[in-house]
C-alpha cells in the first residue's frame, strides 16, 4: 500500500474514532464508528488481505452497525447534556484510563512490538488460503465458535419468545394456589 494512502486512512480512522468518544449525540457516535470500521476495511484491502477487508465491510459496516443503530433508536436515547456522575467516579475513571493507556503503551511501543513482515507468501489474502487454514489448522476453534454462535441464537430466541395466553393463565393459577396454601 502506498504510504500516503496509509497515512490518510490512519488519520480518517483515528479522527472518526475520536468522534465516537467525543460526540454527544449517540447516533453521530455510531456513524463515526462505521467510518472507522470502513477505513480499517480499506486498509486490509490495501494490504492485500482482500477477503478479510470485504468481510469486515459486510459484517461490521453493514449488519452489526445497523443492529446497533436499531438498539439506540428503539431505546430512544437523547443527546447527552453536560457531565454526568459523581466527582469521585470521574476521578477514578480518569485514573483507570491512564493506567490502561500506560499498559497499552508498554506493550505497543518498540522494542516489544517489532514489525515482523514476512512478505507476501503464495496465495496471500485469497479466499483459498483463508479457508485452507480455517478448515485444517484452526478447525477446532472454528467449530467451537460456530457452536457458541448457535447457543447465542437459541438464547436470543428463548429470551424474545412471548409467553402464550394459556401459559400466563397457568402461572396465575399456580401463584393463586400457592397464596392459598400459605394462608
Amino acid at each position, binding site marked *: 500500500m502506498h504510504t500516503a494512502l496509509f497515512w490518510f486512512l490512519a488519520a480518517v480512522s483515528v479522527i472518526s474514532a475520536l468522534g465516537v468518544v467525543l460526540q454527544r449525540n449517540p447516533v453521530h457516535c455510531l456513524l463515526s464508528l462505521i467510518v472507522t470500521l470502513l477505513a480499517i476495511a480499506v486498509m486490509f484491502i490495501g494490504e492485500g488481505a482482500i477477503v478479510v477487508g*470485504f468481510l469486515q465491510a459486510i459484517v461490521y459496516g*453493514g449488519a452489526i*452497525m445497523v443492529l446497533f443503530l436499531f438498539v439506540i433508536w428503539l431505546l430512544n436515547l437523547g443527546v447527552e447534556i453536560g457531565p454526568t456522575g459523581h466527582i469521585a467516579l470521574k476521578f477514578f475513571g480518569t485514573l483507570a484510563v491512564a493506567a490502561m493507556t500506560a499498559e497499552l503503551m508498554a506493550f505497543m511501543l518498540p522494542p516489544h512490538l517489532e514489525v515482523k513482515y514476512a512478505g507476501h507468501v503464495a496465495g496471500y489474502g485469497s479466499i483459498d488460503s483463508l479457508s485452507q487454514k480455517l478448515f485444517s489448522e484452526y478447525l477446532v476453534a472454528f467449530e467451537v465458535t460456530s457452536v457458541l454462535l448457535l447457543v447465542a441464537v437459541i438464547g436470543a430466541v428463548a429470551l424474545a419468545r412471548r409467553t402464550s395466553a394459556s401459559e400466563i393463565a397457568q402461572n396465575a393459577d399456580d401463584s393463586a394456589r400457592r397464596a392459598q396454601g400459605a394462608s
Partner: protein
Amino acid sequence: MRTLVQTLLASGFFGRNTPYDLVAAIAVFVLSAAVFLGVAFPFAGIVSWVERRVWARIQSRVGPNRVGPNGFLQWLADGVKHVCKEDIVPTDADPVLFKMAPYLVVLAFVLPWAVMPFSSALILADLNVGILYMTAVTAITVVGVLMAGWASNDKWSLIGGIRSAAQIVSYEIPAGLSIFPVVLMTGTLSMQGIIRAQGWAPQHWFLFANPFTFVAANILFISALAEGNRTPFDLPEAESELVAGFATEYSGMRYLFFFMAEWGNLFIIGAIIATLFLGGWQFPRVSNNPVVMNVLELITFNVKVLFLVFVSMWVRGTLPRVRIDQLMTLCWKYFVPIAFANMIGTAIWVAIWPEGNPVAGYIMFAAGIVVAIVFIRRVVFYAKRSQMELYYYPTI
C-alpha cells in the same frame, strides 16, 4: 486496466517522464466518469420511463407519451424539474446527516459498476472477490436509508427507514446463501471466472446445472427485489401508509437521488443474476476478431440483464404489496431454510460429480421449456376465456 495504462504511457502522449500513478489516476477518473455519466445514470432515467410505460400497459392505461417520441424524453423533463426545485431542509432535521444520506445511497449504486462484467474485456476491475465486493458495497444502502429516515426527524420517515433496514438486513441472508451454490461449483468469487465456468448454451448455464441452483436463482431474484425495495416488497415507501417513507421530507435533487438509485439498482440485480446463473456474456465463438466478439458479448449480456429488468417491472405491475409479517415469514421461515438446504444439496452434488453432470443440464433445460410452455398456454387460455380486449400497438 494495467495494460491500458501501459499502452497509454508507451504511446508517448503524456510525455516521457510522466509518473505511472498519475496516468493511472487519470485513466480511472475518465473511465469511471464515462461509465457513470454514459451508462449508469441515463440507464436509471430511461428505465423510469420504460417502467411507467410497461405498468401503464399492464394496467390498461397509456402512460407518459407527451414529451418526445412516445414520451421517451419524459425522464429528462423529470430530471430538469427536480433540479429546478428548491432544496428544502426541515428546521428540526439533523442538517448534516439529512444532506449526506442521498449521497450514501447513490454511492452504494455506483460502486458495483466497478466489477460489472459487460464482456470478456470490458470490465473495470476483475477482482478475485468480485461477487463478495458486490454484496459488500450494496450493503451501504441500508446505512443511507436509515440515516435519511432518522435525520428527517419525522415519524413517517423513521418508520420507513426502520422497515427498510429490517427488510434489507433480513433478505441479505438468503441472497448471500444463494450465491454460495455457484461459488461451490466454480471455486472462484471472480465475476469473469464464474462466467467463464459456464457456456453460451442454456444447458450449460448454472440455472440449469442442477435442481438446487435453479431454486437458488429464484430465491436470489426475489431477495434482490426485496433488497431493492421493489413491489411487492416496497413497504419502506408504502404510499398509502407512509406518504413516501424515508424520502418524505426530501425535495428536488436529493429526492431524485433516492429514486435514481432504486431504478439503477434494477440493472445491478439483473447483472448479478445474469452473471451467476444465466451465463453472463457467453456467446458462441463466431469470429476471431476480438472487437466483434466483444460487441456481441456486450449485446448478449445486456439482453439478458434487460430481460430480467423487464421481469421485475412485470412483477411490480402485477402483484399487490405484502404485509410486513408476510415479508418476514417468507424470508425467515421459507427462504433461509431452503437456501441452507440448497447449499448442502449442491455440496453433495459437487462431491458426486466434481466436473458437473451434463445430462442434468439437458433434463433441467427441457423441464424449464415445459414450464414456460405451460405458463404461456394458461395465459392464452385465460385471455381467451375472459374475452378481454387486447391492443397490440406498443406505441400510442
